[in-house]
């Protein structure tokens, strides 16, 4: 846990949260299917999982952008969905999302200054001169030079655009920022700058983050705790580094093993688990444990019964029938060396 974390209760908590998509006469997609956890104020809470596992839907539901089909959402001690709509809109400004594609966030015909001022303009907050002053202040906080204010989106690099996107979210002085794959498209060095920026802004603005990414390295670097999602459910969660370094769920284990390694000793020691296929059709979830169609450790019981989430070690929650077994094993599952490891063995 980070030393700056304030011991003052949850920023957001969800209980048995469900979010479904689907109109009349259409199959229902349960994108988030019974999720329970609480994130503390000041915490960076990571969410990982393959695409389609429900990360973005969960993030959007957490800030109230999507209405859950069931379960409970609390922002501190406020129940946002119970607020009257005018009050809800005011409340919602303190819970912002930054998405992967900064191009979608900016109107190509607007200058950065106009884009930055827009959220305050819509919220009818402050006078024009104050909004402009604030926009320049926010540009400075994200380390963009003031001349960027008069630029159009196409005149900025990918990294600059993502910085401007953050500046825009900060204009409303949010308490919570949901960052959805915000560093996915960036080069490593720019990515490092962005991660440093996020860490600094958390201190400066007292922010709480939800950090969604399919990059385990990024999540384990920035997050205090991490939740691993598969098919609408959290299959494992706990302190970020513990989860990534010693997974207790076969899905986390497989994600970890598919992550390319840059340290030679670790690459050599690595046993790769190549998961076949992709997440099955969202309309027809597998019976029992949803991961059983791809899980290298699956047995008969996995097809029949859904595993319960249990706290295996302090703070480490896992939903797998054989999590205790996995924990007891000193070595991860021995898998046939993959073609890649054979190919690189001769290097």
């Amino acid at each position: 846990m980070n030393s700056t974390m304030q011991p003052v209760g949850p920023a957001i908590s969800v209980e048995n949260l469900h979010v479904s998509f689907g109109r009349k006469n259409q199959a229902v997609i349960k994108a988030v299917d019974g999720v329970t956890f609480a994130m503390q104020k000041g915490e960076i809470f990571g969410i990982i999982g393959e695409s389609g596992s429900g990360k973005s839907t969960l993030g959007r539901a957490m800030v109230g952008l999507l209405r859950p089909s069931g379960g409970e959402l609390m922002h501190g001690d406020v129940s946002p969905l119970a607020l009257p709509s005018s009050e809800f809109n005011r409340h919602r400004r303190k819970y912002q999302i930054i998405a992967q594609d900064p191009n979608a966030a900016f109107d190509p015909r607007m200058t950065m200054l106009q884009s930055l001022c827009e959220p305050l303009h819509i919220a009818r907050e402050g006078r024009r001169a104050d909004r402009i002053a604030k926009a320049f202040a926010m540009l400075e906080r994200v380390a963009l030079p003031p001349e960027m204010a008069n630029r159009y989106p196409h005149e900025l690099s990918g990294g600059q655009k993502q910085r401007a996107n953050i500046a825009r979210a900060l204009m409303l002085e949010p308490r919570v920022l949901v960052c959805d794959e915000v560093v996915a498209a960036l080069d490593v060095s720019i990515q490092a700058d962005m991660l440093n920026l996020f860490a600094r802004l958390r201190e400066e603005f007292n922010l709480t983050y939800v950090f969604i990414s399919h990059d385990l390295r990024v999540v384990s670097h920035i997050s205090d705790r991490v939740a691993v999602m598969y098919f609408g459910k959290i299959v494992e969660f706990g302190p970020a580094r513990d989860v990534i370094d010693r997974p207790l769920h076969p899905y986390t284990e497989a994600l970890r093993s598919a992550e390319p390694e840059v340290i030679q000793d670790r690459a050599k020691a690595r046993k790769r688990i190549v998961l076949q296929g992709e997440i099955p059709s969202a309309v027809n979830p597998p019976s029992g444990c949803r991961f059983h169609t791809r899980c290298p450790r699956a047995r008969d019981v996995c097809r029949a019964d859904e595993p319960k989430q249990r706290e295996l070690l302090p703070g480490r929650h896992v939903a797998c029938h054989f999590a205790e077994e996995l924990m007891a094993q000193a070595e991860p599952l021995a898998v046939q060396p993959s073609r890649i490891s054979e190919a690189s063995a001769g290097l």
Partner: protein
Amino acid sequence: MIAMALVCEPRLLIADEPTTALDVTIQAQIMDLLLELSQKTGTAILFITHNLGLVAQSCHRMVTMYAGEVVESGPVWDVIASPRHPYSSGLLHSIPDSSRPRGTLPSIPGRVPSLRAMPAGCRFEPRCSYAVPECSATQPIQHIADREVRCHRFAELSLAGAGT
């Protein structure tokens, strides 16, 4: 798309960021496919990416490019463990890793120069923390056994690689 590229058993396959933005699981499947092809048919693969982990895991040799020039090349693990060009080192050093303390990640200051404002000497000079006055001279590529580097200071610098 990859299957299409493979039907004619090419001698060379140029894979330009073939897995960028894909999940690690799908990425592993695609890399397996490409490497299997290369082993079975002898197809050479030129793999273009900014994912250094993938390079480490799948390639024999690597080339680091900066601002339109090759700045370093060599056997993959040699370059990754002990880069000789400050730019390669900067990239490798900025990868987050769970073995590294949390806190600030090292990164390379500044950005790639535009074509109009290309430095006359070493193109990396404005961003290089090892720059000295001699760096403003044109840097030829130097050959050292099976490696190449475009930096006159390569012998005296001891640069950090991945995981350090």
